[in-house]
């Protein structure tokens, strides 16, 4: 049974179909990267996965005991948060709200859980700091801790490294990979960074209204769509694939492959 199964999904946004006939599955322990250009329907798909936008056609089936409100979501940061007075502890704790039900106050278990997540992500020392005083990388760690408080099964990250410098970005990817490997939490990441997507992810969904490619990451490198996209984003050097226009090197490598 899959955690999430999308069947023939079509989603419309303001009367226009932005996602069409999309089918894919997310299993426990998967690391799925959703890539695609701007306006390819990624954000709309994310909204639907979160249950905030109902599909026009088709359906999203949650399985394996994953409840709709138990997806650990890491959204893009909003304008409001830039000068918002909130301590790190308050933000992380708010990830526990979905297990509160109608009970209005946090229990000591919630506080322990939040503390454990802050320890895991190395932000325990910041718990009294104001969220708005943190650096970009620290903020993302806080929001990741909040997302982890909200889920035991699946993280959904929406372009999490936007605006981070390369070193912090690499650290953050490492962190996500560790969370995915060590706890078996499925990771779904919407990303522009195709390079790290093929490196870290187990599966790739290339979205352009419908799925141009959906499958294992290693297959994506060899697929026509993957090649074209990898090349167009200028990451061709690092990906070890042969490209027709680089006749010399590709011939050599091509022989090795054969």
């Amino acid at each position, binding site marked *: 049974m899959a955690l999430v199964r999308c069947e023939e999904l079509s989603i419309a946004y303001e009367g226009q179909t932005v996602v069409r006939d999309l089918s894919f599955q997310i299993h426990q322990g998967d690391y799925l990267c959703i890539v695609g250009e701007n306006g390819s329907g990624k954000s709309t798909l994310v909204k639907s996965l979160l249950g905030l936008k109902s599909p026009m056609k088709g359906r999203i089936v949650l399985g394996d005991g994953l409840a709709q409100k138990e997806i650990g979501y890491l959204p893009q940061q909003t304008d*409001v948060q830039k000068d918002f007075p909130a301590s790190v502890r308050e933000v992380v704790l708010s990830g526990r709200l*979905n297990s509160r039900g109608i009970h209005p106050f*946090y229990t000591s278990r919630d506080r322990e859980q939040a503390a454990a997540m802050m320890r895991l992500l190395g932000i325990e020392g910041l718990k009294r700091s104001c969220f708005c005083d943190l650096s970009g990388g620290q903020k993302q760690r806080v929001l990741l801790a909040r997302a982890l408080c909200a889920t035991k099964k699946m993280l959904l990250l929406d372009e999490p490294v936007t605006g981070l410098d390369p070193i912090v970005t690499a650290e953050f990817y490492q962190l996500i990979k560790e969370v995915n490997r060590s706890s078996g939490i499925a990771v779904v990441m919407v990303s522009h960074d195709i390079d790290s997507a093929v490196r870290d992810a187990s599966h790739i969904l290339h979205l352009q209204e419908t799925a141009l490619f959906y499958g294992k990451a290693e297959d994506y490198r060899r697929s026509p769509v993957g090649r074209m996209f990898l090349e167009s984003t200028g990451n061709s050097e690092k990906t070890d694939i042969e490209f027709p226009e680089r006749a010399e090197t590709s011939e050599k490598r091509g022989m090795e492959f054969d």
Partner: protein
Amino acid sequence: MIDMFFEMLSYPFMVRAFVVGILVSLCSALLGVSLVLKRYSMIGDGLSHVGFGALAAAAALNAAPLAVAIPVVVVSAILLLRVSGSSKIKGDAAIALISTSALAVGIMIISMTTGMNTDVYNYMFGSILAMSSQDVEMSVLLSAAVLILYIFFYHKIFAITFDETFAQATGVRAGLYNTLIAVLTAVTIVLGMRMMGTLLISSLIIFPALTSMRVCRTFYSVTVSSAVVSVVCFCVGITVSYFFATPAGASVVIVNLLMLGIYAIVGILNNQCFYPK
């Protein structure tokens, strides 16, 4: 000095003004934290103009002012949220649209019935004498409701204020709580506007939160500080108004402004001592 203070409180109208004012400023401060952070500061202003229109209509119809104004303002608060939620008309434009329309309707009604008189002046700028014992009962009930709901839903209000999408994704019914905040704000404004004045009531919502945010760095401390600052400023302002015969609403706003200045200075000093650049 103390004698004069007790003398002031020997007038029933002053006691009523104090009770209603303290409760209204407490409620508006709590709601204000969320409204200011969600960039809805002007909602208070918009709603008070609607309230003005409603009071004018009530006077023309010889109806009880609160009985007309509260439902009208509550409905427009919900409407405002719905309209600014849709992308056709943006939030700030929607508020300006509704508030000026309501003001225009109010002025039309007044000019066709009683004409511009002292009542209109009082609606606009507030009057310390405006509170009846019915208002006292209403404000006690209202503020009890606001306080209970606020404490009960405090964590959810934090969540939807900080990050509405995440809150919704984790099962918090953001629409419901936004509506709740709007309705409570509407009732608070109607209760406070005749004392503070249509043009000045929104200060009770905006000032305490902004003041506290100069110094406090957590949501909890901002909330508590806003409540305290708001009540203190109101009491000082109304006392000044009594002793120096200044308009009540304006006095409270000036005290709030001074408090903002003090907090801003403390905030700057704080930053230099604890977070040197």
